[in-house]
């Protein structure tokens, strides 16, 4: 769901950029204050992994492909939605500048959708589900699915405001495609979190996990 430059007027792109920068500033502050030094390698490895996963367009039928976003993954592993904003912003900068994947004037909107919306939806739905169900796998699965679907719907609304898509068709098509893509996102996120938990349980920072007896 990387929005190219052609899909949003520059004036609106600037508005999204300003909103995005507020969150990016908060994410930088998070990295400075909350990120412990022993977790820096994990953050960087996650960025590399999320970049690679995002380059993998998987077929989801209906003449459409989709790739993972990774916002829920970053937020859950590092225990903060700002982790998702921090990592996704840098991944989007590399993608936009080096590979033309996502525009420059639209980068703010992409940061808002995948980093901010994805990170917050992923993190807080995980926290809430964890409290209610106590199931790590189930909570991660649903959180990752939502963190793919909700940003897509946000993107559809932005496309409507930009005059690029009509609201109905945009919401239905974006919602349908990303509901399917989200299932893949959910499966891979559960697998990735299982892997990290097994290899380096000390790096996982979910309050819920510690409570579960890590």
């Amino acid at each position, binding site marked *: 769901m*990387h*929005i190219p*430059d*052609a*899909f949003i007027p*520059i004036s609106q*792109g600037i508005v999204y950029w300003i909103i995005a920068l507020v969150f990016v500033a908060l994410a930088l502050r998070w*990295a*400075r*204050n909350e*990120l412990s*030094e*022993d977790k820096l*390698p994990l*953050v*960087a*490895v*996650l*960025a590399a*992994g999320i*970049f*690679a996963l995002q*380059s*993998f*367009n*998987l*077929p989801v*039928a*209906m*003449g*459409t*492909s*989709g790739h993972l976003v990774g916002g829920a993954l970053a937020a859950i592993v590092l225990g903060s939605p700002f982790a998702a904003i921090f990592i996704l912003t*840098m*991944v989007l900068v590399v*993608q*936009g*500048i*080096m*590979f*033309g*994947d996502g525009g*420059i*004037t639209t980068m703010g909107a992409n940061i808002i959708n995948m980093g901010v919306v994805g990170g917050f939806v992923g993190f807080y739905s995980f926290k809430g589900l964890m409290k209610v169900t106590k199931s790590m796998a189930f909570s991660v699965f649903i959180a990752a699915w939502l963190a793919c679907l909700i940003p*897509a719907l946000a*993107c*559809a609304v932005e*496309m409507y405001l930009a005059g*690029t*898509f009509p609201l109905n*068709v*945009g919401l239905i*098509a*974006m919602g*349908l*495609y990303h509901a399917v*893509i989200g299932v893949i996102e959910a499966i891979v996120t559960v697998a990735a979190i299982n892997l990290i938990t097994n*290899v*380096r349980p000390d*790096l996982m920072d979910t309050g819920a996990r510690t409570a579960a007896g890590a």
Partner: protein
Amino acid sequence: MDNKTFIIAGIIVALLIGAVAVFLASGDPDGLESTALVVQGQKTITGDTPADAEIHEETAGRFSYSSPMPDYSLGESLGSAGGLVAILVGTLLAFLVVLGLAYGLKIAGKPTK
């Protein structure tokens, strides 16, 4: 697993995913592009994407930028090899940019604590 092993293993996994993607990634448009084609009447929501489908892009008054490696490729002539180089560069760059920025913030943040 110590930090060094974890970093190396993590980067290898990332590069493997990226390498597989070069060969196996679907050529179909992504969700956003696919929706654009639906809006422009070139495909139905659940139908296949026609081979000649092309998104009409609004360019008047829009910013445009040419990246060094558009679409994770170094051009048709280099094919998959170019794709592999692009993914390698991108994955390592994502790793280094985040690592560098995170370390930079930590160092810059220290005196104030």
